[in-house]
């Protein structure tokens, strides 16, 4: 469904060159939920933007459903971290969720159906006429998720969507994402800095190195498909997986190679 091969991104400003992504190669099969974790500043957002077609890579290729990505491909929906800024403030919740469908030329009756279903699925029944800025942060992010779900995408990209939300809301939203994923069978690439979240949500976890970024390691999460915040997180297998990911991230942070953009810690042997 989603193939990334040798993805490379170099930012050039004047005479300074910053190699954000060096060589990223991975695939996401149809219907998979894959989480991407990495140390801060490792270019997770750059990677996601390249995959979404919002940023042109310097090298390598991204393919969605076999077709190369040269701009935002149809059939892909994105949920950003800044929910407040990704919803249109001059439109009601209903209109916000409906907008991509109008653009897709979905007939009116079907549009109404999809919007109603999506809002119910995220638990926002009854807020159709409200404006985004009248809702709380968690609810706004739900609207963004509803918008993505109503679009019926083949691939759903989520860029640290719960980083700006409080812990309890984050737990609810994590469960929401898993529930939606199991119900709709959509392919999800979930980028996060939260290691626990990555293990809790994903079927597979890809660990990124520090900048310049490569895929450092990957592991398969062999936890049961039925997961819940209370029991899964107390499961010893969860702890083992989490520890493994944490160790890899620590290695990635310590292994920052010389010649990278300034701010990382010096390399350890």
């Amino acid at each position, binding site marked *: 469904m989603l193939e990334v091969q040798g993805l490379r991104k170099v930012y050039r400003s004047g005479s300074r060159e910053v190699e954000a992504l060096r060589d990223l190669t991975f695939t996401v099969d149809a219907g998979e939920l894959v989480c991407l974790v990495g140390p801060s500043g490792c270019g997770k957002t750059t990677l996601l933007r390249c995959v979404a077609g*919002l940023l042109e890579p310097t090298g390598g290729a991204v393919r969605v459903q076999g077709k190369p990505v040269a701009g935002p491909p149809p059939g892909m929906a994105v949920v950003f971290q800044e929910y407040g800024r990704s919803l*249109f403030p001059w439109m009601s919740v209903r209109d916000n969720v409906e*907008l991509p469908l109008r653009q897709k030329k979905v007939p009116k009756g079907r549009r109404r159906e999809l919007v109603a279903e999506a809002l119910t699925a995220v638990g926002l029944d009854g807020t159709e006429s409200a404006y985004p800025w009248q809702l709380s942060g968690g609810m706004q992010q739900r609207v963004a998720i509803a918008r993505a779900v109503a679009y019926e995408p083949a691939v759903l990209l989520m860029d640290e969507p719960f980083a700006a939300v409080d812990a309890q809301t984050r737990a609810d939203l994590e469960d929401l994402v898993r529930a939606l994923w199991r119900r709709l069978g959509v392919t999800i690439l979930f980028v996060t800095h939260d290691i626990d979240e990555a293990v809790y949500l994903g079927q597979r976890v890809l660990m990124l190195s520090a900048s310049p970024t490569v895929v450092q390691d990957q592991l398969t999460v062999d936890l049961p498909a039925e997961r819940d915040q209370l029991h899964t997180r107390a499961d010893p297998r969860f702890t083992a997986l989490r520890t493994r990911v944490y160790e890899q991230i620590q290695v990635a942070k310590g292994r920052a190679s010389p010649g990278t953009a300034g701010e990382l810690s010096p390399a350890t042997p």
Partner: protein
Amino acid sequence: MTDRTDRSEGLESTRGLRIGERVLLVFGLPAALFAIWYAASANSESFYVPPLQRILEAFVDTWTPDRLRADVLPSLARLGAGYLLAALIGIALGLAIGASPSLRAAAEPVLEFFRAVPPPVLVPVIMLFAGIGNGMKIIVIVSGCIWPILLNTVEGVRATDGVLSDTARAYGITGPARLRRLLLPSASPQIVAGLRQALSIAIILMVISEMFAASNGLGFTIVQFQRSFAIPEMWSGIILLGLLGFLLSELFRLAERYVLAWYHGLRDVQRRS
């Protein structure tokens, strides 16, 4: 019995007051100034500053319905035409320039150059190629009030939120749809601010354009009175002009409150948090 509604009728700052209190705030100062003017000029012997009482008498005599139709209506029509034209051109051009960084860089110096020229200075030049009819007056109005609209639109479009822009792109909202559904609404608070400035300028230019060569109009009438030394009538015309400005301003405020309801709501929430 209090009338504490959230809808402000008049000034935003009078929200939550009783009707009586609101009326007092809006009309209190003008009424007080009027009374002072009346009293201070009551025994005036000056030719150029007659007693307010005489001015008010002249007001009633001069501004009959016939005269209103013959002079004020054409002026308002020209004002409306000029303002509308300036809005259409200004917003359209502003959207185009604002959306393209290269166009913006190229156009900005030129725009700033032309904006700095005061329209009254241009009137004789405009008369040369536009004649002395309604067309000339409308062009004068447009030449002055297009600048705040154009420049504000450019700025409003330029300041579109990056995340919102990415979201629109990600969902395939490009081309005319992007203009209509993202750039225009996003820039609308800024555009409305430009329209507000342009309104004041348009009223001034409406009068000025009629001072040079005209056969009817409010500005023309005022200047006629001045030249024929009909001073109380002249003052009455000036008062009428002021009232007109006030009325148009209130109409604008009402329209803005409707169009930018979402923006006021958003700012309220941001202010409170």
